[in-house]
């Protein structure tokens, strides 16, 4: 029998997870859409955000500082990685790009293990957002509700940058046709660097704000990376709205299946992905030709 209180709280968990996945996925999808590079190190960037934020928190005791440090650090890492390595791979086959970002992911994960060890690190929820809240119909961890708010704000910010600014317009044009953008006299390499930075920051930001919910370990990014791939396949590569829709679908699927049997949550994700691939090969909100 379904326990309705449990069900609603799982729906909420799904919403929070879905929003978080949407944020990570939009970073991945705008990088792929613009640069044509699938960043297999994206999960590792998520993890780096957590560790950098944890350091910031350890030295200052402020959650706010942790979030700023975590996001900015990963953005800098993203920009450096693009400048030093990824840039040399734009003209090489997709397979080489996959290999090099996969290798980078391992370097990041193992570097974190080297500096911080394998024990998990915890960043507590900020003051006033800890504990449990009574929503009238159920009790729910306060920080998760706050997390939902934070992610929604972050997604809105990303939306505004992408859809309401000049630079966002260039990025969206680049997703459709980066050669054309280049031909219009816009330095497309600067755009690429910026996009990689923003995309990486989205992952890093998600990594630190999620730290009070899931403690940080060197491998924490891996499962998010896999879920992110499913989100992008469901939503459609290169589509920001697709990442949000796909994220919410994946989040709810995982949460609701977990309530019945956690072992099947990935199976359900996989079934959903397969259905989308068979019925709408370019994803729910994707367009042909972005591959």
């Amino acid at each position, binding site marked *: 029998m379904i326990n309705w209180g449990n069900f609603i709280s799982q729906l909420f968990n799904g919403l929070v997870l879905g929003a978080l996945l949407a944020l990570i996925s939009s970073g991945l999808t705008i990088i*792929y859409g613009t640069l044509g590079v*699938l960043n*297999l190190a994206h999960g590792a960037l998520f993890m780096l955000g957590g560790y950098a934020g944890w350091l910031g928190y350890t030295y200052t005791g402020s959650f706010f500082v942790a979030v700023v440090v975590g996001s900015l650090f990963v953005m800098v890492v993203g920009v450096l990685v693009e400048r030093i*390595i990824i840039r*040399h791979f734009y003209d*090489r086959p*997709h*397979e*080489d790009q*996959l*290999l*090099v970002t*996969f*290798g*980078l992911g*391992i*370097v990041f994960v*193992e*570097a974190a*293990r*080297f500096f911080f060890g*394998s024990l998990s690190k915890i960043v507590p929820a900020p003051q006033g957002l800890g504990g449990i809240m009574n929503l009238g119909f159920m009790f729910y961890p306060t920080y998760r509700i706050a997390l939902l708010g934070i992610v929604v704000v972050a997604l809105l910010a990303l939306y505004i940058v992408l859809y309401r600014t000049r630079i966002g317009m260039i990025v969206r044009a680049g997703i459709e046709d980066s050669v054309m953008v280049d031909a219009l006299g816009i330095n497309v390499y600067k755009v690429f660097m910026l996009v990689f930075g923003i995309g990486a920051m989205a992952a890093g930001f998600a990594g630190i704000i999620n730290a009070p919910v899931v403690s940080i370990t060197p491998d924490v990014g*891996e*499962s998010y*990376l*896999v879920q992110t*791939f*499913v989100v*992008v*396949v469901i939503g459609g*590569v290169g589509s920001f709205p697709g990442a949000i829709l796909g994220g919410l679908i994946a989040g709810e699927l995982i949460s609701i299946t977990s309530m019945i*049997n*956690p*072992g*099947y*949550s*990935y*199976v359900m*994700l*996989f079934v959903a*992905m*397969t259905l989308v*691939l*068979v019925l709408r*090969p370019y994803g729910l909100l994707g367009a042909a030709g972005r*591959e």
Partner: protein
Amino acid sequence: MLKQRPYLIEVLTVIGLVAAPFVLPHLDFSPNTVNRILVWGLFGIGFDILFGFTGLLSFGQSAFFGTGGFVAAYLLTQVGFPHVVTALFIGMIAAAVVGYLIGLIALQRTGIYFAMITVAISEVFFFVEFNPLSAYTGGENGLPGVPTPSFDLGFMTLDFSGGWKLYWFLAFWYFVGIVLALRIVRSPVGAILSAIRENPLRAAAVGHNIHSYKLTAFVIAAAYAGFAGGLLGVLQAFMPPDAFMFETSGQLVMQTAIGGTGTLFGPLVGAAVWLFLSDFFQTTLHLGASWKLVLGVVFVLLVFFLRRGIVGGLVDLAAWLRQRGKPSEPTEPDVAPDYDAGPEASSYGTPSALGSGVPDKSDVILRATGLTKRYGGLVANDNIDFAVKRGELRGVIGPNGAGKSTFFKMLTCEIHPTTGTILFEDQDITGFNVTRVCQLGLTKSYQVNQLFTRLTVRENIVIAALAQKRGSFKLDLLRDVSKVEGLDKRVAETLALVHLTKRADHPVSDLAYGEKRRLEIGLALATSPSLLLLDEPLAGMSPRERVETVKLLKAIGRGRTMIVIDHDMDAIFELAEKITVLREGSVLVEGTPEEIKANAAVQEAYLGGVIE
């Protein structure tokens, strides 16, 4: 590289495998390490066929490694199945079946999508092993107690329990795996797999069913993975759950890239380097767990600088040294071939349907009726009626944007018309795909070269000719490609016709532009089309190359049915017997070159005003 003396590689492999137990102990390799290298090397052979030869980078091989391993281990430990080798084969078959089903899904898409889907798949399998199936797989404990093989021969017992004894068992299977893989990559299927890696669109356009071939490669890789997974259980006397982990897939990818893709031996070398370094870093340098960090850095550098890995690098080095020893090859003298006199053109088999007076076939080889293509509000082609007679050489001209290329793409079924029908040899081909139409005898040469760039000229032509000789899909995995009946003759004739015989063994990337254009036409010709479409064959050529190519086209046109699009009016007027002029997506006029030259509407629309 794989086409040296017959059986040379096989013999060297045997020598290497037999020598290993005597040499490697002196290099501080323990038997256990060597055995692991063999298992990973065998696992990697299949993966190399998938990635190195077919170009499909899968991050999901752990799913099949684990499936094969756990099926075999389950049979041997839980069911009490007595025969180790049979259990290994059942595991392999299970993995191949799973590979087939997963391949159907994963191969829906290519490139990035394929990689993402395989990552997701490997993760799903890991979770399934851990939770829903933990009653069968032992969950996080795995399955302990996998026996080692022993064979009672009556007069003696062959016992392979552990260490160097087990080595011989593993080495035998590695050898079988390599021999089979060598046969596969030298078979027609192997040639087509590398064509898919180089240019999937063209591989499909010359008439190969590339989806089925990709699925074949995927299943082969899964079978190798499954067998290797079973061997892992035998080796460790325990089937570990981490066989299913994403990390296993990752390690395989890295080892293969380190050793060298597309070499079959790369994974073995990569595994040796990997396991040796892991020992060396941990026990000699006392790096502890951070050895993976060093290895990660090494891997990134390797992808950066040595993209063909260690074996590929050695092969390139050897080739370079050989090249340096010799004076540079004299290039082909650029003498204009005598197309008119050459017997080669006439000896080249003409399409069977032609000239032999086939009475039951109609005179019209291709008829398009009411062909319309709309892109949203834009009408690219509007209600085109078009018919070509057998043996005709038709020219199609029209100003830029007249819809010529769209028209051609519809005829070859690359895109489908919004309305209208296409009849080819009295068969309605509307809605067919490129592969099927090519198999029926209708193909085109592309406006922009679509070649298999890293292969030689001969290999290019072989791939196209294979489609005509073998049909769109055939599983002759173990047949030598050179033994395909009539193939050599066909390839030699095509090479002679497009005048590339002397360049046959050069890689396409070495060719001059004009030569590449001729090869482009050669690819279409090698499929023996009964109707050949040429999309701007003269595009981008120098005036001199144009003169040569027009001669070539005339030679090809003898006894063939062709439709040629080009902007070079003089060339079309010289070549074609009849010309169709397109303007703004519809047929403006049709007639002989003289009629077209004299037509006022054409002059106005195309040549820029009436000539007095």
